């Protein structure tokens, strides 16, 4: 456990502004950390170290000139399913191994406009389908708290990059828990915004009615800053909301006296690891000690979440990956003669096992004769789950619980049991289905030294309340300050 308080985006910005540190020094520090840690964790698929240092020089000029943006000089890592004109965008798939995006995702444009320095592209489960980063076609990322364990997924690389200090912030995508889950496993903060809060333009689609790009950072306040910068309507994404973006930073520090915090009994059921339960119950007690009113609530459709989520996500995914034909974007080299064989071979070789399962299950659920019973039924239960959240938020301001019923699992323990892998997301998927925002914040450790994340869920477009509660809780504890030690 590190003795020093780790750097955050906000504290680093202060050091840059008062000239204690230059942006080049700051970015170099992070490039050095990448050098040290990458052989142990493989969080990155591509490093942009040279470009980052050149960018940092420009940041220094802007800081000197007094016109630095809110993220000037800050190294940020980007999940490799978000398009950048810099480098490649592979989605951790052989299918896109050499793909170079012709445009930047809107979130990238917004970050760079704010002065951020993009330090590299991080590892993920292929096409964001997975909960452990084991399904990356380019090797798994390791959990820095115990390298025999997964970092969670699918945004494992981004979570680890922040956890070990390779970057001060990162972007990931969350479709069913892919930001919150690895944040919880790695002792960092991760946010899934309300569906439509952040533009998906440039995010390689997995489940188009579920996907959201969101931030990772060490602290709640840092993620509030990042969300502030990337959120808001985008003409280029017809599903992005025209809802005003509040000043999220202003809400970090507000008192939570009298706020109603719901604890759904379904979130702390008998399947939960007893140590996780202990940590979460303590976190709830700590929140109560800060003046919040704890209200037992019930979300009976929580257990239906997995089926609904996976039917929708895999159906949408099967449709989204049908564009990968090896003809417009290159895929693996195949020697097929006719068009059909070309498709079968390219897609057969280019996709990994989880993507293939997704395609098969999704296509089945959408096919004639099965559509009503599977996909359409899932769409209807989705309405019921959304109503359940809307209803509970009439009685409470936020809902809390564990991000996961278990801590980081061992490599290989679920790769042969797809259903078990799906169940890892049981507590994050219902939130995604309803489209409401949620944050994972460090809440403690088990006896084995594995992190536990607390999930705070807010109503649609009420991220400010989520930040308010999460920040107050975080600052009353010291969990976020713990950093993993390098073990050679």
């Amino acid at each position, binding site marked *: 456990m590190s003795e020093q308080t780790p750097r955050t985006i906000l504290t680093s910005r202060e050091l840059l502004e008062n000239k204690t540190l230059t942006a080049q020094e700051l970015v170099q520090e992070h490039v050095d950390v990448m050098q040290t840690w990458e052989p142990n964790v493989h969080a990155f698929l591509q490093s942009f170290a040279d470009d980052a240092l050149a960018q940092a020089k420009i940041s220094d000029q802007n800081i000197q000139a007094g016109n630095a943006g809110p993220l000037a000089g800050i190294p940020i890592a980007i999940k490799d399913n978000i398009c950048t004109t810099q480098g490649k965008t592979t989605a951790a798939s052989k299918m896109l191994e*050499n*793909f*170079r995006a*012709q*445009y930047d995702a809107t979130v990238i444009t917004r970050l760079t406009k704010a002065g951020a320095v993009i330090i590299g592209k991080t590892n993920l489960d292929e096409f964001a389908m997975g909960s452990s980063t084991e399904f990356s076609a380019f090797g798994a990322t390791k959990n820095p708290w115990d390298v025999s364990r997964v970092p969670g997924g699918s945004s494992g690389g981004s979570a680890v990059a922040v956890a070990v200090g390779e970057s001060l912030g990162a972007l990931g995508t969350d479709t069913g828990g892919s930001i919150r889950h690895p944040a919880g496993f790695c002792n960092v903060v991760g946010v899934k915004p309300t569906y439509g809060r952040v533009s998906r333009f440039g995010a390689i689609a997995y489940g188009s*009615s579920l996907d959201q790009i969101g931030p990772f950072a060490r602290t709640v306040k840092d993620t509030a800053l990042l969300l502030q910068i990337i959120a808001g309507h985008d*003409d*280029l994404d*017809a*599903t992005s*909301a025209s809802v005003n973006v509040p000043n999220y930073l202003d809400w970090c520090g507000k008192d939570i006296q009298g706020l109603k915090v719901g604890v759904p009994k379904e979130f702390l059921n008998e399947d939960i690891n007893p140590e996780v339960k202990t940590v979460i119950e303590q976190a709830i007690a700590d929140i109560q000690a800060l003046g919040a009113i704890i209200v037992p609530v019930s979300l009976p*459709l929580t257990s*239906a979440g*997995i*089926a*609904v989520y*996976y*039917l929708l996500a895999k159906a949408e995914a*099967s449709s989204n990956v*049908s564009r990968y034909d090896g*003809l*417009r*974007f*290159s895929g693996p080299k195949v020697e*097929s*003669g*006719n*068009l*059909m064989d*070309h*498709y*079968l*071979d390219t*897609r*057969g*070789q280019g*996709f990994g*096992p989880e993507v*293939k*399962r997704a*395609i*098969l*299950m999704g*296509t*089945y659920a959408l*096919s004639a004769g099965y559509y009503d*019973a599977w996909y*359409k*039924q*899932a*769409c*209807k*239960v*989705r*309405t*019921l789950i*959304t109503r359940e959240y809307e209803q509970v938020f009439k009685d409470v301001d936020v809902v809390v619980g564990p991000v996961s019923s278990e801590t980081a699992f061992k490599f290989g323990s679920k790769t042969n049991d*797809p*259903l078990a892998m*799906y169940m890892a997301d049981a507590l994050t998927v219902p939130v995604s289905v309803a489209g409401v925002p949620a944050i994972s914040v460090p809440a403690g450790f088990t006896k084995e030294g594995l992190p536990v994340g607390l999930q705070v869920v807010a109503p649609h477009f009420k991220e400010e309340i989520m930040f308010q509660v999460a920040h107050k809780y975080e600052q009353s504890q010291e969990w976020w300050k713990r950093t993993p030690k390098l073990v050679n």
Partner: protein
Amino acid sequence: MITEEDIKKVATLSRLGLTQTELKSATKDVGNILDHFSAIQHIDTVGVPAADETGALANTAREDVVRSEQLATHADLLANAPATDKGQIKVPAVFTDVE
């Protein structure tokens, strides 16, 4: 119960090549998963609209104008295609004499 025939059918529909081993394990896995998910059939959804019909965000439109930042050269747009010919993407024949 899902059969290998069912999986073969959807694999063909989705243009996905599967080895015999993959076919067998996919049949088992997808079957197992759908068995587990069949519980949602018992949830009463009579009169409940499908989520995409709840009208949250509908018919979002914008002016059909090209934005300069979206312009790319022909070369840029073809850069990722593995085979091109005279500025077009080259593909295997779609219609052939064989069935």
